[in-house]
């Protein structure tokens, strides 16, 4: 055939594109739900009273595309919080009017929609984002327009913006205490396994410094491409190296393959401890509880967290969105973020960004996962750290917690080894 060469070239181009798409697809952590119901749940906040007085509030998550899996359930939680606040009479006598925008898993879209929400809709605040890339895209826009942005997901730290409130954990509220706990309870020899992109690499940089400082031992550090599905060779290496602990920063679908194959290779949670930082209740549903049973994860909140606020929260969430839905850490952080902002507005007596920011300093709120407090210095949130073990029903049993909310330290200034991480 004459055009075979052209055909090959096109094929090669398409395949590489597909490979790229597969890579993106892998980021789809686990969280929940089809996009269909997302569309159905669009703006509905302006029900009771005060129509002209309603205050526009932006919600910006990926409702389509690869991240919709994770972000739709966070959007649901934020909508629920707004609805609850409106039912209770709104804020400063005004109803909140949610304006839902779709970031479409595309970082430039996030920036563009942020601009639209701030400039055209005059949103008093925006709740949204999931990936660090989406946050980094939004950051300059909110800073330029002096808007407010609440970000609900744990991340790699090393960032602080005066216009962003971080309601998810930073590294010293998840990774660092988890490493300390492992060193004290499970052994010194660490095997670091992660997907090959920013978060795992930054997390492992931190872990390596911490291991050096706290007497741990780094056995190996392995990264696999996003979407990688054959873990037998990695498991061979694990068998050879005999670590005490695998610190798992794999993201998305790779977790399914890794844990299935680990189990098949005859390694159970009794033989080897694994601790993950991106597997929550939503992800367990997709991986299968039987495969994950006995393994550990570190978060600030579990659906099983035993507080009166959480009981109410879980019940309300299930009543609104369905019995089979689960709550998890980013869902909770999205939910209480709305309340934190509302409290700050009440305290400030105004919706003006600068006044709200000033009032937000040291503000406290009783969240489902326990008391949270906004840090006046870096606008992160004090949160309790928890480590849980996966049970047969897919829920976590808490095995350790920090006892009290931990002060956020995104630049790891309070650790003697922290400077080693930030200077590089």
């Amino acid at each position, binding site marked *: *055939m004459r*055009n*075979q060469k*052209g*055909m090959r070239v*096109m*094929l090669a181009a*398409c*395949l590489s594109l*597909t*490979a790229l*798409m*597969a890579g993106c*697809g892998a980021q*789809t952590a*686990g*969280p*929940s*739900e*089809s*996009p*269909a119901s997302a569309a159905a749940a669009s703006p509905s906040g302006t029900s009771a009273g005060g129509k002209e007085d309603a205050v526009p509030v932006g919600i910006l998550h990926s409702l389509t595309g*690869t991240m*919709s*899996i994770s972000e739709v359930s966070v959007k649901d939680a934020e909508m629920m919080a707004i609805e609850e606040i409106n039912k209770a009479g709104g804020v400063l006598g005004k109803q909140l009017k949610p304006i839902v925008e779709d970031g479409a898993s595309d970082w430039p879209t996030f920036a563009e929609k942020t601009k639209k929400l701030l400039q055209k809709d005059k949103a008093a605040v925006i709740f949204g984002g999931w990936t660090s890339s989406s946050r980094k895209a939004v950051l300059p826009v909110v800073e330029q327009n002096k808007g407010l942005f609440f970000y609900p997901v744990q991340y790699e730290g090393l960032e602080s913006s005066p216009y962003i409130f971080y309601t998810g954990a930073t590294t010293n509220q998840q990774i660092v205490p988890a490493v300390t706990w492992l060193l004290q309870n499970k052994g010194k020899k660490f095997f670091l396994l992660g997907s*090959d992109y920013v978060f795992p690499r930054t997390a492992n940089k931190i872990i390596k410094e911490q291991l050096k400082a706290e007497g741990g031992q780094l056995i190996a550090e*392995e*990264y*696999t*491409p996003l*979407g*990688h*599905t*054959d873990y*037998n*060779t*990695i498991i*061979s*290496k694990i*068998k*050879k190296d005999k670590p005490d602990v695998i610190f798992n920063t794999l993201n998305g*679908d790779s977790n*399914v*393959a890794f844990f*299935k*194959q680990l189990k*098949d*290779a*005859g390694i159970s949670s009794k033989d080897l401890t694994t601790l993950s930082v991106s597997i929550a209740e*939503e992800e367990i*549903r*997709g*991986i*299968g509880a*039987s*495969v994950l049973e006995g393994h550990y994860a570190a978060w600030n909140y579990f659906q099983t967290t035993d507080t009166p606020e959480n009981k109410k929260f879980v019940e309300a969430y299930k009543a609104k969105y369905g019995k089979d839905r689960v709550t998890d850490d980013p869902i909770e952080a999205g939910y209480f973020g709305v309340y934190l902002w509302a409290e700050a507005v009440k305290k400030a007596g105004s919706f003006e960004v600068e006044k709200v920011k000033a009032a937000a300093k040291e503000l406290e709120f009783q969240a489902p996962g326990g008391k949270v407090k906004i840090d006046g210095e870096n606008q992160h949130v004090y949160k309790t750290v928890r480590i849980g073990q996966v049970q047969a029903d897919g829920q976590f049993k808490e095995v350790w917690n920090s006892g009290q909310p931990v002060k956020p330290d995104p630049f790891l200034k309070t650790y003697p080894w922290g400077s080693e991480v930030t200077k590089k």
Partner: protein
Amino acid sequence: MALLLLQLFNGISLSSILLLIGLGLAITFGLMNVINMAHGEFIMIGAYMAYTIQQLFQKLLPASAFGWYFILSLGAAFAAAFAVGWLLEITLIRHLYGRPLDSLLATWGVSLVLQQLARQLFGAPNVAVKAPEWLEGGLVLSADLILPYKRLFILALALVCLAVIYFYQYHTRGGRRMQAVMQNRPMASSLGISTRRVDAQAFAFGSGMAGIAGCALTLVGPIGPTIGTYYIVDAFMVVVLGGIGKLIGTVAGALGIGVLNTAFEYTTSATLGKVIVFSLIIAFLQWRPSGFVSWKARALD
């Protein structure tokens, strides 16, 4: 020593997976020359069939029968993918023979549509499949050398599929007709073979094979709407490297990529290992553009 053997087994095991996903493509791409970017979605159909059958078993049948669901799934996966493949051939592919670029774009579109359809039907998140009891655990040869039954099963399945395709191609009426049509269409047609029907059959058969691969893959990896995209690159690599149009080439391609990939991954890292393998493939194809096994046929003249 045990580790070396284990790594060798891992290599062969990966090869068997590659072979399984490559076999269907060896027919649709290798024999028929259709660049089917939706091949991965036939894998997805197979995987979701396994999930569906499992759900049915859990709801309708007593727990003791559960172990059998997987065998039934294999058949159902083949049947479902075969049917969709057939439908796709008569509605779309048929009109695109000899127009590789058009078929490439059209099938890519089909792949996106099928993915979205899966999202509507099964939801965007992954679904979990529980392996039947008889595939849990592994063959213990020594403390360090455990061969998981699932991997052995996939290996056996790949060999069975290979045998079936071989037998079909060379020892059945339908298979010989298929060969004849692919090699010399006008001649076959003038001898009374309905080439349209043969085309549809061949395409559906290749799709069905992808369905079986998808069903088997539920044992090792995730099941989600994008499962196909993970494997399609590898599938094309296997077929292109092996040499288009000959079954033995597909086997060689799968073995080569599988064993080398695990070997390099063991000595370097997962990312670097893959880079090395891909570089070697590119170099090899420069040297032998038609792959391991070249085939002198009129279709390629």
